[in-house]
């Protein structure tokens, strides 16, 4: 019977081509617009660390200016996003977390003896050894450095897949030597293709930046006098007593180190929280941390929300797109009602010939579903077009976000069918309730 209804629906759509095209276009435009925006929002708010969401935590400590909280009125939890070098190195001494990472963004010029490769600037992550295991960055060759390299300088480097491709043509380069700012570094590992989006482990400088090209140990700071290439915020320009130069920077109240820990269970988490509170109490005795005792451990999912990866504009656009779809649905209701009422005499005849109200209802609902499917397919086309437009217009790493996966394609068709079923519900009900006898008499 469904087959019969579908063939009737298609026949009916062909019978009023302009009206049908109008309705399909209305649904398609509504679905296209909402799917474009929803896809961008869905991809934007994806959590690349979802598998470890109950084990990973970003660490924040409130050692900010006693006179005013960090970032009044802006996003976040009124605590600095990053730690001072002093606190980071102190936290690294804890053996409670299964893994822990202190890190920040940096940059090196890279040169190799091979004259064919021109020197280039590579965005670098300065980090402790656990980075790769904690964030599930997979190795293609070799592996990470020893723990000692996080405390004393050791000139070793892990390359990203792209960097290895560029320098060594994708072959196993472990053991090769490259020059970073003119100093020799030995390659000890090469990652596989790895590019979490959004870049949840470092959201400071754009939410969709590519992951780094090089990774070097945390123990190299003093040797290379490394500053952060990411954010660096301070509130107290008092230079640590009696210190000058780079040492003063390392001991200052500037926050520039990002800190993550992996805690396996609730007990471990509670133990670590106690450890953090103790650390702050100790520091208070030394005259630091004059604000009320406050720290935070945030899961990746919470971290993404706090950093407003899905920003206000995206939310406004999402609501706007849904309202747009609503207008399209109301439009389709009006047109379907007009169309169905025009066909009321036919429905009357069908009733006389034995169709129940239910079969008339289902028949007309099938007709609106056909409009929904066609509108959904056209809507996916429009959404793909819209996403191309977003890629062209937005840029800035945003291009990786503006893609549709299969889930979104099915969601688009589903949305179109739900929209048109909703649109068809009232008109179909209305026509199934009309009294057939008035249409059977001649005038």
């Amino acid at each position, binding site marked *: *019977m469904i087959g*019969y209804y579908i063939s009737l629906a298609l*026949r*009916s759509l062909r*019978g009023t081509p302009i009206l049908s095209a109008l309705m399909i276009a209305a649904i398609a435009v509504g679905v296209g617009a909402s799917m474009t925006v929803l896809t961008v929002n869905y991809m934007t708010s994806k959590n690349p660390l979802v598998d470890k969401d109950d084990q990973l935590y970003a660490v924040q400590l409130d050692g900010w200016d006693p006179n005013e909280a960090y970032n009044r009125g802006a996003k976040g939890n009124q605590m600095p996003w990053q730690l001072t070098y002093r606190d980071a190195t102190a936290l690294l001494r804890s053996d409670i977390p299964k893994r822990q990472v202190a890190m920040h963004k940096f940059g090196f010029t890279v040169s190799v003896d091979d004259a064919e490769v021109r020197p280039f600037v590579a965005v670098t992550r300065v980090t402790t050894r656990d980075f790769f295991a904690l964030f599930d960055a997979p190795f293609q060759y070799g592996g990470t450095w020893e723990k000692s390299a996080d405390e004393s300088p050791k000139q070793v480097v892990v390359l990203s897949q792209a960097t290895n491709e560029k320098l060594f043509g994708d072959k196993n380069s472990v053991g090769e030597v490259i020059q970073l700012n003119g100093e020799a570094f030995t390659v000890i590992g090469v990652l596989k293709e790895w590019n979490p989006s959004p870049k949840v482990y470092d959201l400071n400088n754009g939410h969709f930046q590519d992951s780094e090209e090089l990774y070097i140990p945390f123990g190299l700071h003093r040797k290379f006098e490394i500053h952060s290439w990411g954010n660096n915020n301070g509130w107290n320009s008092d230079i640590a007593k009696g210190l000058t130069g780079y040492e003063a920077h390392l001991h200052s109240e500037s926050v520039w180190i990002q800190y993550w820990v992996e805690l396996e269970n609730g007990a471990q988490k509670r133990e670590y929280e106690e450890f953090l509170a103790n650390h702050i109490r100790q520091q208070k005795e030394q005259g630091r941390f004059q604000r009320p005792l406050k720290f935070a451990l945030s899961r990746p999912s919470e971290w993404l929300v706090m950093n407003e990866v899905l920003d206000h504009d995206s939310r406004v656009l999402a609501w706007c797109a849904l309202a747009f779809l609503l207008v399209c649905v109301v439009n389709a209701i009006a047109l379907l009602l007009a169309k169905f009422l025009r066909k009321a*005499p*036919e429905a*009357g*005849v*069908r*009733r*006389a*010939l*034995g*169709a*129940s*109200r*239910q*079969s008339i209802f289902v028949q007309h609902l099938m007709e609106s579903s056909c409009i929904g499917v066609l509108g959904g397919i056209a809507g996916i086309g429009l959404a793909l077009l819209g996403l191309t437009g977003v890629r062209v217009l937005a840029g800035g790493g945003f291009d990786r976000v503006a893609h549709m996966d299969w889930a979104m394609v099915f969601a688009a068709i589903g949305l179109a069918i739900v929209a048109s079923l909703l649109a068809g519900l009232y008109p179909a009900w209305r026509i199934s309730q009309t*009294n*057939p*006898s008035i249409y*059977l*008499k*001649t005038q």
Partner: protein
Amino acid sequence: MLKMHNIRKSYRTDTIETHALRDFSLEVNEGEFVSVTGPSGSGKTTFLNIAGLLETPTGGEYLLDGQEVGNLSDRERSRMRNEKIGFIFQGFNLIPDLNLFDNIDVPLRYRGFNGKERRRRIERALEQVGLSARAKHLPAQLSGGQQQRVAIARALAGEPRFLLADEPTGNLDSLMARQVMELLEFINEWGTTIVMVTHDPDLARRAQRNIQIVDGQVSDLRQSIAQQEIATA
């Protein structure tokens, strides 16, 4: 076949209540050919709609084929319409977008027959009304008489035991009207019960029995026939 007892039907608007049928009682036996006449607004159409299960009466009893239909659900009434009743209208009421084949197909679809059975019945029905060659034509391509024959074919395809005809010849010239009438008589001879509403006394007389509705009630039969004879004389 059909048994109505004290059927009432009233239509209510905000201000007035109109009684279309009042204590209407009628019995039609299996195999009968009954004509129903009466002046405009007498309740002929209301009777037909109730008899055909298109409307429900306000009160009274209606047994169709021995079954009380008053308490049936829409779905059961629809099935009954589909299986037991065939309709023929003055305006033919063919679906203009469907060709003859598909028009006749409509009730068979609701009946749930498979494709082979439907095809067999459609072809036979078209043959019975002599329009086999035009199965793929649209109704608009046919003359009025041909259209009415298609409508009859559509009514017959489900092999109903009971045929309701509402002014079946009203829109036709006399030649075509006679052909349609002959077709109905032929169908009746094969055992189908027919109730035909008409205002044409010649046609009415060709039925085995004539009923006149006046003011929503069956008026005295013989008297009315006598009156008509006087009037036509």
